């Protein structure tokens, strides 16, 4: 009985320590790069550090005052749920399918480009290209421009595959895709979620009765998912 009571009183600081550890570890291990916009990473780390501090303080107070036996309240069941979730977060890392996520969401209209105009074409990222093409809708302006970008293959049902990136304002919950149409080489079957490094040039193509820019690759290389795959 004493052991159960002691455990129930210790559970509070231990759970706070566990959640603090989850937050700090998620930041330090780079997992947050897959989940949140980078501006939030320090906030999560500081929150985790604060939780660890509170947990340690509680543990110290508990041990110093020998109050372990006084806490006769039973452990709320929900607390066990939070412990299981914390352990599951540690054991099962996030492995989102960007293709799956992007397929169910319409492309957003990103804000006007800032650096995209002054950057040489081959230094523009995929997102900067998408922004540029939407604010400068004359396709002939960019025809022949060299392109060197990376992204994942986005294959929406009933549409040709695109090269895409996910943009987040906050976390994966609000991620929206920005994609570029690609003239895939004959016989090349782009697999959804595959990350590709593509070099080539921008060309024009007629689509639904209007001209649009399309990326024509000269080289395609499969690459691992970047460490920071989300773009602001």
């Amino acid at each position: 009985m004493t052991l159960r009571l002691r455990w129930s009183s210790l559970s509070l600081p231990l759970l706070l320590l566990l959640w603090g550890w989850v937050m700090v570890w998620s930041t330090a291990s780079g997992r947050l790069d897959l989940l949140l916009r980078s501006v939030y990473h320090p906030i999560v780390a500081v929150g985790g550090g604060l939780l660890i501090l509170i947990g340690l303080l509680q543990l110290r107070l508990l041990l110093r005052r020998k109050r372990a036996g006084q806490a006769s309240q039973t452990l709320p069941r929900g607390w066990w749920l939070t412990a299981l979730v914390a352990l599951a977060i540690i054991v099962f890392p996030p492995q989102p399918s960007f293709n799956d996520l992007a397929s169910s969401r319409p492309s957003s209209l990103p804000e006007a480009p800032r650096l995209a105009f002054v950057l040489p074409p081959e230094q523009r990222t995929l997102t900067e290209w998408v922004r540029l093409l939407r604010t400068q809708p004359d396709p002939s302006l960019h025809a022949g421009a060299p392109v060197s970008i990376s992204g994942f293959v986005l294959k929406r049902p009933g549409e040709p595959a695109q090269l895409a990136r996910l943009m987040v304002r906050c976390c994966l919950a609000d991620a929206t895709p920005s994609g570029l149409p690609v003239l895939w080489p004959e016989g090349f079957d782009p697999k959804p979620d595959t990350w590709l490094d593509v070099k080539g040039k921008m060309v024009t193509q007629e689509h639904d009765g209007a001209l649009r820019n399309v990326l024509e690759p000269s080289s395609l290389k499969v690459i691992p998912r970047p460490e920071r795959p989300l773009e602001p």
Partner: protein
Amino acid sequence: MARLATAWAIFQGLLLESLPFLLLGVTIAALARWLVPQAAWVRRLPRHPLLAPVVGALLGFALPACECGNVPVARRLLASGAPLGTGFGFLFAAPVLNPIVLASTWAAFPDQPWLLFARPLGAFVIAIALSALLGLMGERALLEPALLEERRLTQPLAEVGLLERGSGVLGAAPIPISPRPSSQSISLSDVLLHSGREFLGLLVLLVLGCALAAAVQSWLPRAWLLAVGSAPTLSVLALMLLALVVSVCSSVDAFLALGFAAQVTPGALLAFLLLGPVVDLKLAGLFTVLLRPKAIAVTALAASLLVLLIGQWVNLVQL
């Protein structure tokens, strides 16, 4: 399987992003409890049906956090005996009326100054209307039982009888009551213990809310919601549904709204920015520490109706 993995990642993203704000809210509530245990000033706040929610809403400037962090602070306000209107005014309007949210709205829509005025104004209107409506239900039907018990301990016996306090009912099961405010200051260990329990209690509900939001997001294509963007009424309804489902914090929802601002009507855009901070799937669990289920349902319905009317009116004026 891929969808499940994606839902798990969305869940983790939502939860880890919300946790620091929840902790901030619990910390502020704990500090308030420790530094001003009697919280006499809280009970001196105006009780006027119009003034009380306005004062509560303005308190939001003291807590630059999103709606997750507001719940524990609103609970502490109500438990300390604050007028209902002030508590609800804070709960419903403060997630919009705080410097960070107003700044992010301005940053996201610098070319639409009307939104910078319409959003806080709409939040005020909703907070006042909801406070008035919920006030009609009476505390007993409105507040969650444990909160009601704690609140009654702070009220003078002239207003609440001994039996109503629930502390001496013969034959009734003992009710666990949180440490009551006393004339002596509360020790740090008590504050730490209480805030730790409060944090974990809210965390359980936040976990459930995030799981629900992640599941709905993963299995409900967002394109369906935005497909009706140009229809005045349907677009407002669609964006309201989107706000309920997405459950992002009010401090960043303006940037999310920016992504589809060009595809929807102005009224729908405002509806998205007004409803999310008051009601969403992530908050559904957290509200249970404050309100009874019936009161939560009334809040959700009334807020949705008000936001729909505001959105419609904006469309009528702007279109």
